[in-house]
């Protein structure tokens, strides 16, 4: 019952790509932190934010631009307010307006749009870049997003387990 065969990792799989990137960014983050203030809650909170961003970024980069959600996520990460890129603020405004228009049109087309109205909106909020998609593509993106999220959780869990005392 305890016997299990360790699977050989495919070097180009999503999991290994994400793992390498995430570990790299983690080591960068940990290299930055001064040991003195590591235990203060604010410092830890800051690190937590940075690590979360690093995790999302690594995930999005592992998927490249193949998926709408990864593109949207990368875009979102690049234009975070702390990045101080004021040039992009105008594009942000335009995009959200455009997305809202699309959203109105997509929820009203077809009988399925009416059935899925409320839940589809929730799903759109959850999945990055889901605002401007019709239901079929939204489901498609959700499936891939779930797959990537599970990979992310697995890898992070293993890292955390490995390093916890």
């Amino acid at each position, binding site marked *: 019952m305890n016997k299990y065969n360790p699977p050989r990792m495919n070097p180009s799989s999503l999991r290994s790509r994400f793992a390498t990137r995430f*570990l790299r960014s983690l*080591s960068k983050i940990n290299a930055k932190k001064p040991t003195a203030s590591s235990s203060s809650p604010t410092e830890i909170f800051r690190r*937590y934010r940075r690590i979360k961003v690093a995790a999302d970024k690594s995930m999005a980069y592992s998927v490249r631009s193949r998926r709408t959600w990864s593109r949207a996520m990368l875009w979102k990460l690049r234009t975070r307010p702390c990045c101080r890129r004021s040039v992009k603020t105008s594009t942000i405004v335009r995009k959200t307006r455009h997305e809202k228009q699309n959203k109105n049109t997509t929820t009203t087309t077809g009988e399925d749009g009416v059935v*899925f109205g409320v839940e589809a909106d929730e*799903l759109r909020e959850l999945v990055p870049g889901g605002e401007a998609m019709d239901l*079929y593509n939204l489901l498609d993106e959700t499936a891939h997003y779930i797959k990537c*999220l*599970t990979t992310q959780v697995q890898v992070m869990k293993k890292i955390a387990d490995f390093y*916890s005392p």
Partner: protein
Amino acid sequence: MNRALPEMLPCSDMTVLQRQRARLKWQAEQFQQQSYFCELSGVFTSQNVHVQGFQQGGLVSGCGGGDSVLSNMEMTRQLKPDPGLEAAWPELGKVDMGFGSCGYGNGPSFDMNHAISRTSSCPPAVAAAAVEVKGNAEKMGSAVGRESFKKRKVEKLQNSKVVAEDESKRIKASEEEEEESKITGPNTNKITNHKKENSGDTSKDNSKVSEVQKPDYIHVRARRGQATDSHSLAERVRREKISERMKYLQDLVPGCNKITGKAGMLDEIINYVQSLQRQVEFLSMKLATVNPRLDFNIDNLYAKEEFPSCTTNFPTVGMAPEMANHSPYLQFNPIQQVVSGCGVEMGMGMGMNSSDMALRRTISAPVSIPDASFLNTTCFTGPQQQIQPSAPWEVELQNLYNVAFTDTIEESDLKMEM
């Protein structure tokens, strides 16, 4: 004599005969599904005499060595009917099979029968005569066959829908299986049912099923009794695509097998995505608190390779081996044993077991409580069973609660309670 024929013919014709036999077999299946062959039998018996007379006359007039040819003809007739056919057509004799193949819209096959049997076994001198006979045969065949062909065609059209429905149901079933396997592929062609077709087209349709992607446009045919509007057709295609996606998502999200209905499924999916996102947040929090004793480098990958993935085993029965798997690399407190027990009973997937065990060692433990309660409400078969184990958890978790994380955790609590 029956058995002598195959050896008499050269090899190339044997294959043709086999083909014909195969075709007749297939036609026989068609026959068996339909009821109208009884009517046909009536048609045949009336024309049986004509056919026989025609064939014999044709043969006699044509060939000097008519004996061998005639025997060939009869042999071909006798070889062709398959057991299925024979069962259905006991009294009509073998001659009718050739006629049937002719009358069933495969006129050329009738000629082919003659031509093949003639060219195969007749010497060239006879072949010339055979061509003559063939010409007569065509005329006769067309004259004789046309009437019955018309009758049969009418009946066929009436019954083709039945046949086509059966067939296309089979096709559709296999199609759905195919499509379910081609999950991430782009748009697939939808060939639903066929309004009217000749028997020859069904083989083409069978090949259409295996046809996969046509990015330009989608072939859809209206089902019997459904609107043939372009709008409704497009709607149907869209709906089918969406239901296919939903099925795939159902496989991806654990615990969704019992839920039928799109709305419930969507809710489930939303909950799952939310829980995964929360887990990522929690794990990044955990990593923020961990002091790295070792370098974060590729060595970890090797180490990780040895640890099986914990989150993909979702069935309740599978929980027990998971507990055992966790033991090697997790340091157990007695508290964790309680968690393991709870995990087995709850049968929660989503990797909550290992993460809950990890909680024992970290500060941000309370984050898991709302997760557990959420999972309590959504994924279960026996709610009473699962609610009980959560109580000892919460007692343990509160022991590990750290004031430092109150803010963030309460924030996430609020989110979950919504």
